[in-house]
């Protein structure tokens, strides 16, 4: 013996796997044996090995006190006669320790000192004594009593702890259920309400006392099939559960829409004993969805009407125009010689006006088409498109001196067709309104701003009075006489619509005879 206390069993309490209660308690039963004779210790150990798998041996009172610091014992076998601290002293100290205050102590004492020792032993709180030399059967049966007692105590303690835990779980759960915004209702299999949370009261308007022990079916409108009863039946048939939307009747007779799911409640043996119903009020959600759906349908209808309108404008308005232009022209050609110069002039004015009206109709249709066309999203090289438009403009009027300054590599994401149309309108505008200047400069570039890139088309042409800047983008609004600059006045309205469809904004700056700048973002 090396003189130190040692564990016979190496059972590590904390690492032991969760075992059935009996075993868990048994494993925790330790016995402390204190004797200064190693031989005596070994003998006692041998006798008690069948009683507990966890025997702790101590060779002195001091060592025993240390062991007691570390763990609880079912019983302590304490030799009275030991050098240094004897059994009585040790027992006195053991009793002072919180941990061992009530641990049963069995004194081992020599038979010849029985009377004296036993008196002292009981005085010190010993529960029993055994005379030396020890008779194994007596020792085992006495120790067994305490081991059993310790086991039972551990078991009771464990059950108390479990009860406390489950009580805590229960109150936690019920706090969750109570604080939940959703309605959580427990029912038995006949659909009789067993529990009713605050959410249920809030949603359905019934307080708990009004609903407990009443059928849940009162929530189902009489003109609707009883989905709850049907679902309880389905649950009993073990059919898969699903969440469904249902109409419910509240205490004040309102109809509300709920999203409702049902879960089984089972007893310890797994038998279905009831159901739990969770419902969420989705009336507002449904109303919003319906409103959205209606609005979309209305918009679609309006769009279809607009489509029909555009079609009819395109077809029916053009026919009389064609007649005016056609007969006017025929009149000029076939009867011109019979008219004087003024008559021919008037006729030609009529023909020109009808042509112009044709253009206006085309532009108007284009504008309405832009508002409805599907928007594609691709990477578009604005610089390349601007350069191509500039080339085309220069080719069409080679006698003009116009310098184009186009910033390179301006790419965006957007609809290529619409963005081409946008640049075409802005650059043609710039080209047109610089037409009366002998030299002109047209610039396409970008400025970096907080909201992102701001593109611009700037010219040094006729410009405009900022007082009318607002009117620029309205369809058919013109700031210049038609004799001055041709056009229908739809170009900038088209520009604005394209920019808006890309989620951007457009604005203009200018001054009379000092040029104009059109800025736009693309979302």
């Amino acid at each position, binding site marked *: 013996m090396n003189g130190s206390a040692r564990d016979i069993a190496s059972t590590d309490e904390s690492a032991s796997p969760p075992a059935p209660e009996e075993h868990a308690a048994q494993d925790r039963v330790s016995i402390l044996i204190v004797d200064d004779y190693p031989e005596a210790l070994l003998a006692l150990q041998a006798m008690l090995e069948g009683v507990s798998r966890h025997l702790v041996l101590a060779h002195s009172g001091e060592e025993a006190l240390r062991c007691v610091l570390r763990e609880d014992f079912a019983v302590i076998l304490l030799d009275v006669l030991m050098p240094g601290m004897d059994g009585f002293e040790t027992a006195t100290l053991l009793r002072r320790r919180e941990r061992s205050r009530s641990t049963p102590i069995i004194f081992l004492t020599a038979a010849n000192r029985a009377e004296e020792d036993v008196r002292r032993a009981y005085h010190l709180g010993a529960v029993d004594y055994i005379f030396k030399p020890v008779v194994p059967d007596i020792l085992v049966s006495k120790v067994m009593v305490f081991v059993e007692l310790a086991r039972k105590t551990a078991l009771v303690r464990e059950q108390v702890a479990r009860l406390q835990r489950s009580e805590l779980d229960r109150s936690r759960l019920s706090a969750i259920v109570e604080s939940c915004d959703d309605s959580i209702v427990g029912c038995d299999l006949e659909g009789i309400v067993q529990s009713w949370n605050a959410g249920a009261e809030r949603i359905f308007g019934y307080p708990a006392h009004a609903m407990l022990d009443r059928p849940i079916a009162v929530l189902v409108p009489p003109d609707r099939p009883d989905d709850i009863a049907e679902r309880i039946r389905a649950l009993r048939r073990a059919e898969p559960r699903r969440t469904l939307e249902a109409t419910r009747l509240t205490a004040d007779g309102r109809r509300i829409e709920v999203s409702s799911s049902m879960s089984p409640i089972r007893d310890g043996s797994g038998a279905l004993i009831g159901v739990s119903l969770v419902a969420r009020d989705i009336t507002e959600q449904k109303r919003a969805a319906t409103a959205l759906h209606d609005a979309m349908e209305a918009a679609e209808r309006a769009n279809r009407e607009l489509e029909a309108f555009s079609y009819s404008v*395109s*077809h029916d308005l053009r*026919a009389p125009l*064609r*007649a005016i232009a056609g007969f*006017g022209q025929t009149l000029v050609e076939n009867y011109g010689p019979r008219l004087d110069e003024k008559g021919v002039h008037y006729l030609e004015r009529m023909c020109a006006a*009808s042509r112009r009206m*044709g253009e206006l109709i085309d532009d108007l249709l284009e504008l309405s088409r832009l508002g409805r066309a599907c928007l594609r999203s691709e990477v578009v090289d604005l610089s390349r498109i601007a350069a191509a438009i500039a080339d085309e403009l220069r080719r069409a009027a080679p006698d003009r001196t116009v310098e184009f300054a186009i910033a390179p590599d301006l790419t965006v994401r957007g609809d290529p067709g619409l963005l081409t149309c946008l640049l075409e309108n802005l650059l043609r505008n710039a080209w047109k309104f610089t037409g009366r200047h002998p030299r002109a400069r047209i610039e396409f570039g970008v400025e970096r701003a907080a909201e992102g890139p701001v593109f611009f088309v700037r010219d040094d042409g006729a410009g405009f009075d900022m007082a009318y800047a607002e009117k620029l983008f309205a369809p058919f609004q013109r700031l210049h006489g038609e004799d001055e600059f041709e056009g229908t006045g739809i170009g900038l309205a088209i520009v604005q619509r394209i920019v808006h469809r890309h989620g951007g904004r457009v604005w203009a700056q200018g001054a009379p005879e000092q040029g104009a700048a059109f800025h736009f973002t693309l979302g």
Partner: protein
Amino acid sequence: MPVPGKYLLLVEDLSDDQELALLALGAACTPVPVEIVRDGEAALEFLLAAGRSSARERAALPVVVLLDLKLPKVDGLETLRRLRAERRTQSLPVVILSSSKSDLDLRESYRLGANSYVRKPVDFHEFRATLQFIGRYWVEVNESPPQGWKTPIPGTPPAR
């Protein structure tokens, strides 16, 4: 000099457009006789009943039908569909002459078997030039398919 036996059929409900078309075609270098009907029903009657009626037995079909889309009773697309369903007119050249710029009309016309789709210009000069061009092409340039010849579906073996 009119080309003997050859004529155009104009299906047009607006008398203004009828007259303008006649003015345009009448001013052509080679005037072409034009028959006019006012709606789709009349066009079908003219083109299909002509083959069955003993009074106009086996009257020649026009070299081309100029078909407006917006017509009373039976509209242009329906007229086209029915013409293509009949053996006699299955391969008869049909030019849609419409004011409509709608993509849908364009697609539908070709889907139903139009040979060409022309938008009526508002400007009379253009209108006249367009009609004269069409007339000249179909009367002088184009060779009509043999009458009653069934157009095979492309890619299918020739019928025996």
